[in-house]
């Protein structure tokens, strides 16, 4: 069966393919789920197929005493500034990639514990099966995918570009202040990812490998790794890694990614400060992107800098609990591995196969 979306047009409720939904939408037909009116956000009608919460004023706050409120309000900025300070002043003997990997693993373990302390939704609570599935994908990333990436992935592309062009012309980049270099590396890389991600939601061949990631029905710290390996190669092909920058600036940019991007997939409720959620992507933004509502998924494409979505009119401030595709069908790992290929083949057969001529002509 092709990937189906449950939609309603007028009195007609049906399951249609992603492409059919796109076609009908482009013809100006509004699809919706009967009982839900949706919320108008600019030109869009969001939340007509599945429940979503739109607007910061409607999003629940952290419940508990003043200490808990304080911790879950200032935790994110405190970690960000602490990491920036650490990488800015760490001696050269410490400021290296292995330290960054260690901090990254330690931080993720800490956040896993935080998911138990202050979950956003009970329905997203990590189970043994979900933890094992997520770690399987993390493991692939650290092992076999990393090995292949060295030959055909972004590492190989960056190396090829760097050796085919005299990048010393861009040596001025290394002369800029460290924090400016770090910001530019982070922002330019995110800019590339934004357009790749947006392309995935708008061009069927790119959507096929990405669609698998949208079958997750809850957000947890390692859910970002879940997806078809083809997509993981594509998403790595951002720009920004081509500049000749100071190693310390790259480590600072990595720290920004860790202290901001990690919160995309996390089951923790924070009272993120207003300036934070204006600049950065949050769990709220990303849960909306993973909603079962088709229109809501076409928003919040950036990785760390949600301000890029604001620049291009694709940002929606809100959140969702009900996530996934096809009404929340969970996809097995085996299907996740084959889905883009089997779906692509079915679509090709539908379009060019002989079955399309098997209609009985009118007498």
């Amino acid at each position: 069966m092709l990937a189906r979306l449950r939609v309603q047009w007028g009195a007609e409720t049906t399951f249609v393919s992603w492409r059919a939904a796109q076609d009908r939408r482009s013809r100006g037909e509004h699809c919706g789920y009967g009982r839900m009116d949706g919320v108008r956000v600019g030109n869009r009608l969001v939340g007509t197929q599945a429940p979503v919460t739109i607007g910061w004023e409607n999003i629940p706050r952290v419940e508990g005493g003043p200490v808990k409120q304080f911790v879950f309000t200032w935790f994110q900025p405190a970690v960000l500034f602490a990491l920036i300070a650490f990488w800015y002043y760490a001696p050269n003997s410490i400021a290296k990639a292995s330290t960054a990997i260690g901090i990254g693993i330690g931080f993720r373990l800490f956040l896993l514990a935080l998911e138990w302390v202050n979950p956003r939704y009970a329905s997203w609570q990590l189970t043994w099966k979900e933890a094992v599935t997520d770690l399987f994908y993390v493991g692939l990333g650290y092992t076999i995918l990393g090995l292949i990436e060295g030959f055909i992935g972004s590492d190989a592309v960056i190396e090829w570009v760097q050796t085919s062009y005299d990048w010393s012309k861009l040596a001025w980049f290394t002369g800029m202040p460290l924090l400016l270099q770090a910001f530019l590396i982070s922002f330019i890389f995110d800019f590339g990812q934004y357009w790749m991600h947006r392309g995935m939601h708008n061009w069927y061949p790119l959507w096929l490998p990405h669609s698998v990631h949208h079958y997750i029905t809850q957000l947890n710290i390692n859910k970002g790794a879940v997806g078809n390996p083809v997509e993981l190669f594509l998403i790595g092909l951002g720009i920004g890694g081509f500049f000749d920058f100071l190693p310390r600036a790259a480590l600072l940019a990595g720290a920004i990614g860790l202290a901001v991007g990690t919160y995309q997939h996390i089951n923790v409720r924070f009272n993120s400060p207003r300036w934070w959620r204006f600049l950065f992507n949050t769990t709220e933004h990303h849960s909306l992107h993973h909603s079962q509502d088709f229109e809501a998924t076409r928003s919040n494409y950036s990785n760390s800098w949600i301000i890029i979505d604001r620049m291009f009119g694709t940002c929606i401030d809100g959140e969702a609990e009900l996530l996934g595709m096809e009404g929340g069908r969970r996809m097995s790992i085996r299907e996740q591995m084959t889905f883009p290929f089997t779906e692509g083949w079915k679509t090709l057969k539908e379009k060019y196969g002989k079955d399309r001529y098997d209609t009985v002509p009118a007498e």
Partner: protein
Amino acid sequence: MTNPSALASSRRLPQAFTSGDRVAFRFLDWIWTIQGSLPLAPGQSGDDAFGRLDPLFHQPGTSHERSGDTLTFRKKDQAAQDKMAVFDSGVLRIERVSAGAVLHYRLVSRALLACFLAPLLFLSFAGLTVVVAHLQKPSAEDAAKKKPEKKDVVRQLHPIDQALGAPAPEKPKKDDKSKDDEGPSPTPAYVFAAIFAVLYGVGRVLEARLARRLFRQRLLSA
């Protein structure tokens, strides 16, 4: 509490199997199946017990069938939020004994089997990494012929960073380059093989306890 004989009919082992095969299969079977039994409350009927357990089998992707004192279920693409998501099929059977009625269950989990086998997969990745690293290692001759190295330029920090006290970049050490030439490392694959071995042990114990607790809570619920 396990009573294998009570569920022997659900095993459906061919008659041609010898008793040795059966013992071996039972041992292997333990990897991905969870069995147990729970005494029903005095006077509790089979209908009442299955009625209390019924909501567990009305989840998306779950089909079930009841025949007398036996209930079989099957799950496909079950949601992560399903309390029995880790199981793909199973048999629940109520047996009358002299002391009362007992619920026997046998639950099958492909996730447990996959987790049990995962260390082997990651060990094979480690082996592959070792082979690739060996093939990538330049010979002494190649290393000697290596293209002339670029001059190591010591870069200067921007005056703002100097004023703020950030450590100045150092000239890259020769040792660091030799480390880069070592190629991919199999260590992460070994680490993940160990992680999945531990996770299997945890899951095998935890999921058996959770299933038992879930059934008990349902059977005792008002």
